[in-house]
Every structure is written in C-alpha cells, then in structure tokens.
C-alpha cells in the first residue's frame, strides 16, 4: 500500500469520527492523496467538474428531486391517499393497506423514499393515529412502504447506479417494477396479519359514485408515472428528458388541476431543490475523485482478488455483498455506500458473470432496506420526527416489516428472473 493511499484511508476514516460533511471530507482525502503522491492538484477540479459536464444521465437526479418536491408541496399526496383509501374500502386494517398502496403509487412519481416518508407519511400517520392504530406500527409501516419509492421507477439511486456501472437506465427502471410490487404485496400481507391480530378498524365504505369522484380527482396525478414510463419505453424521451417532462407535468397538475402552487411556493420549491441537489450531486462529484484514486492504486482489483480468493461462486458472493451492505446500511448513509463501496464491487460482479442489471437492483434494494435498519435508519428518524413518536417504539415495530423486506431481498437475489424477465421481455437486454 502506498503512503498516499494510507493517508487517504486515514482521512476517510476521520470523516466519520470528526463529523465532517462526507462529500467535503472525500475532497479533503483526495487532496491529501494528491499532495503526498506529488500529483497536480488541479486533478480535483478536472475530475469533479468533468463528471457533471460529461455525464448526461446524472442530470436526471435534480429533475427527479424537483418532481418530488413539487408533488410534496401540492395536494397530490392528499389525492393519492384518498384514491388508495377508496381502493381498500371496508378491508380490516384498511389504513395500513392504504399506506402501502399510496406509497406504491407515489413511488411512480418521485423515486425518493425520503420524499414519500416526509410528504405522504405525514398524512398517513395522522389518519392512522385518529383511527386508533399504534403509533409505532403506523411509523414502521410508513417507513417500510417508503422503501418502495427508489425501487419502483423512476428512481434516483438507480440513475446513479446506471452512471457507475454504464448500464441502461431504462432496463434498470423496468427491472425494479416486479421487486417493488413484490415488496408491496409482502407488506400488505404483513398488515393484514397484524390488523387481524390487533383488531385494527375497518375502513369506511365508499360508494361507487364517491370512488369515481376520488378517481377523477386523482387522475391527473396518477397519470404522472404513465407519462413518464411510456415516454421512456416508447423511445420518445431519454430517462433524463423524462425527468424534465415529469417535473413539468407535476408542475402543471399542481398549478392547473389542484391550484396548489403559486409563484411564492414555486420559488420555495426550486430553492429547496437547489439545496437538495447541492447535497446529493456534490457527493457524486467527490466520489469520482475517490474512484480515480481507487483505480490508480488498483484497489478494486486487490479487493476483487481478495473476494475471489474467498469465493468464486456468484451466489456466495451475492450473499457476502448483501451481508456487507446490510451491516454498512445500519450505520452509514446509503449515498456513501453507493458511491464508495458499490463501484468496488461492480467489477467483481462482472467477473463472476452476474448480470449488472440484476446486481444493481439487489444492491439498491439492500441499500433501501438500510434506510429502515436501526440504529441509523433515516426513514425511522423521519417518521418518528414528523409524528412525535418515540424512536424506541418505531424500532420495535420495524422488526417484522424488516423481515418482510429481507425475504423479498433473498427472492430477488437468488431468483434473478424476478428482476430480469421484464427488461428481457421488453427487449432492453
């Protein structure tokens, strides 16, 4: 190991001990490497800015963030919630089921788990509390169902993975559909069992006329994923352009159909988007200079050889990857896992003959499980924060939904066809 690499690793570890902003810490670590190994420091600006300047696909990230922010600032969440309520009707534990279905619908619009939990989650938890559901359960099912967001297309993490692995965004999006629906069904089964056991209330009966009214009002919002996915798969738009069109459509729906956004709100939405983009995208830029060091020092090859010396069986490798990401997800933020650790694993997956679309879905799904795993589960913090529920009770209730998520993870890991048959059928692979 070179001195430069050693210094980089030390600074990298310090990021976590010293509470440095991770993106800025990565840039500092890279600078230390360049200083110690006597390289030109302009490599940092060159690498970081060229990532933004030449990677057209990652421009989709700010556009999907904008769409999510527009959706959350308007009445779209309310409409989706009412529509899902109408679908579930008199079912026992109806609001729990509504929670899952609404998340599935919302995930087709935003591609962000945080947006789902913070926007839709607020309405869901409040309604569940009023009907006598346990707060811990309400928060846990909201957190678990929000996980569907980045798995069902569109998905911000899948766009970033496409950039890292040079795979098709369209194929990744399509590959995410079945796992997301499978997760929704598993969570609904869990809600059904708990609702029966705890005697949670039935939903209100909705007459056909009223249901049609809900459908009609929610229709403009419900069309967002349809437009987005049709646009991508008919070849009319690239996924990046689809992000812009989805944003425009969300804006039009919020302004014209729901009269929910004025100039002042729009300014606020764009301002929030800029802040969110700054946080997310600078991580991507900083990770590229780390990737440069990893490539220069042949770290990925060393790690790859080490892994291959342990196992050359692709199923054992997938098990190892899943375990590592699960453990990392308990402590580290998902973007750090995706931008620092996943690029090291991609060449090994390729060498073992694992389809990179399948691998992408497995790691993304696993990282999203990490958003709900204690002690550092972002979705747990959000649902606990917006509802004022003690974190302890959310953590207690998340156990079973977590097991449900892990079950789906095992299925998609060891049955690649679950992920791959749709992209293959669509001729994307």
């Amino acid at each position, binding site marked *: 190991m070179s001195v430069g690499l050693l210094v980089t690793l030390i600074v990298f570890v310090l990021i976590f001990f010293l509470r440095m*902003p991770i993106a800025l810490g990565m*840039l500092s670590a890279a600078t230390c490497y360049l200083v110690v190994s006597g390289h030109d420091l302009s490599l940092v600006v060159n690498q970081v*800015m060229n990532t933004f*300047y030449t990677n057209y696909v990652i421009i989709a990230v*700010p556009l999907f963030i904008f769409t999510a922010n527009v959706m959350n600032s308007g009445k779209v969440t309310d409409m989706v919630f009412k529509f899902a309520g109408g679908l579930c009707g008199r079912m026992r534990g109806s609001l729990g089921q509504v929670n899952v279905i609404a998340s599935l619908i919302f995930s087709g619009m935003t591609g*962000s*788990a945080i947006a789902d939990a913070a926007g839709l989650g607020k309405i869901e938890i409040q309604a569940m509390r009023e009907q006598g559901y346990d707060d811990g359960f309400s928060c846990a099912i909201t957190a678990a169902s929000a996980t569907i967001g980045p798995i069902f297309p569109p998905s911000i993490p899948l766009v970033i993975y496409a950039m890292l692995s040079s795979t098709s965004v369209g194929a990744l999006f399509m590959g995410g559909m079945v796992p997301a629906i499978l997760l929704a069904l598993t969570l609904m089964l869990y809600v059904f069992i708990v609702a029966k056991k705890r005697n949670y209330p039935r939903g209100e009966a909705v007459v056909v006329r009223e249901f049609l009214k809900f459908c009609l009002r929610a229709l403009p919002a419900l069309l967002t994923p349809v437009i987005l996915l049709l646009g991508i798969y008919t070849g009319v738009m690239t996924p990046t352009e689809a992000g812009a069109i989805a944003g425009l459509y969300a804006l039009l729906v919020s302004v014209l159909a729901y009269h929910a956004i004025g100039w002042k709100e729009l300014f606020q939405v764009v301002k929030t988007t800029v802040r969110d983009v700054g*946080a997310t995208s600078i991580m991507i830029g900083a990770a590229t200079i780390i990737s440069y060091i990893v490539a220069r020092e042949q770290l990925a090859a060393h790690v790859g050889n080490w892994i291959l010396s342990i196992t050359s069986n692709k199923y054992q490798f997938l098990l190892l990857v899943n375990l590592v990401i699960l453990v990392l997800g308990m402590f580290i933020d998902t973007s*750090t896992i995706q931008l620092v650790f996943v690029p090291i694993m991609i060449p090994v997956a390729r060498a073992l003959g694992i389809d990179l679309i399948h691998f992408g879905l497995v790691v993304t799904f696993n990282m999203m499980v990490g958003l709900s795993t204690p002690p550092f589960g972002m979705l747990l*913090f959000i649902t606990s924060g917006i509802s004022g529920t003690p974190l302890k009770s959310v953590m207690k209730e998340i156990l079973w939904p977590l097991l449900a998520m892990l079950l789906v993870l095992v299925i998609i890991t060891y049955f690649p066809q679950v992920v791959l048959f749709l992209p293959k059928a669509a001729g994307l692979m």
Partner: protein
Amino acid sequence: MKKLLLFLRNCLEVYVPIISFCVMFSAFVLQVISRYVFNHPLTWTNDLIVLGFCWTVILGACYTMREHGHVQFTMLYESYSPRVAAAARLIGNVLIICTFALLTVPSVRFALFQGFQRTAVLRISLTWVFLPFAYFLLSIIGYSIKPCIEDIKVLCGKLPDSEDHLKNKVTLPKLNVTKEAGK
C-alpha cells in the same frame, strides 16, 4: 458594505443556482417539445443544460453548506462530551480549510487554462464550467471558519457547548442527522 456582500453572496449561492436550474429545466422541456411536436431537433439546448447543471450543483452546494444540509455521519459526534465534540469538529474543519485552500489556486489556474476550449454549439468558454468550483472552495472555507471560532471558545471554556452539538443532542435523531433528498 456588509449588506452588499451578503446580497452578493445570496446572488451567487441562491439566485444564480435557482436561475441555472430554471434554465436547465426549460431547455430540457424545449428540447423535447421541439423534437417531437415541431419535428425540429435543437442542439444548442445541450450546452445550456450542462452549464446550468454544473452551476446548480456547485453553487447549490454552497447554499447547502449554509443550510447545514450536507450528508454527515453524526452518530459518534452526538455521543461525545462538548469539549471532545468541539475538538473533533475543529480538527475536521481545519482539515477542510487547509486542503480547500491548497486547491483554490490550481482550480482557478485550471479554469482559466480551459478557456481555449468551448462548448459545441454556443461556443461558451469552458472557463465558465470550471470557475464556479473555485468559488465553491472559497465559500466552504468561509463557512468553516465560524464553527472553528465557536469550537475554540468551547475548548477555552468560554462557551459550555457549541450550538451545533447542542442542537444535535436535543433533536437526536431527527431530520438534520443526515439531510438527503436523493433516495
């Protein structure tokens, strides 16, 4: 003078990225509409899109820093005593200040050097793509100085705890533990 500087800071870190985002967004929409509705593909929009994206990200990241919105690992920091937390944050910030200061001049030089290259259609000098990075470095250095002063006061016993550490402990573990929108 202070008001003018604050206004300039707001222009660079809030209004310019907002305008850049709007330009990028509008260019995308125009590109798709022009291609499929008017059957007239546009090429110049690409230049605006990538330039708008670069400016949104880099200048937006300065605003994110101001809003304490960058992703951080705070679990250990929250468990530290006030003095240890102050020492940890101080070391981290000094490291950022030193390394970013080292990067500033080479970044400006590189941005100016790139002036000979131009975007494909609008012929905009690439200096405009790379130069905001230098502002980003200076801005982050600026935002890192204030916490350093606060942490030194905590270490000298003039302050019981830093505002940031206190807030993190009180709101533990709420939304500001890690602000992230990309998932």
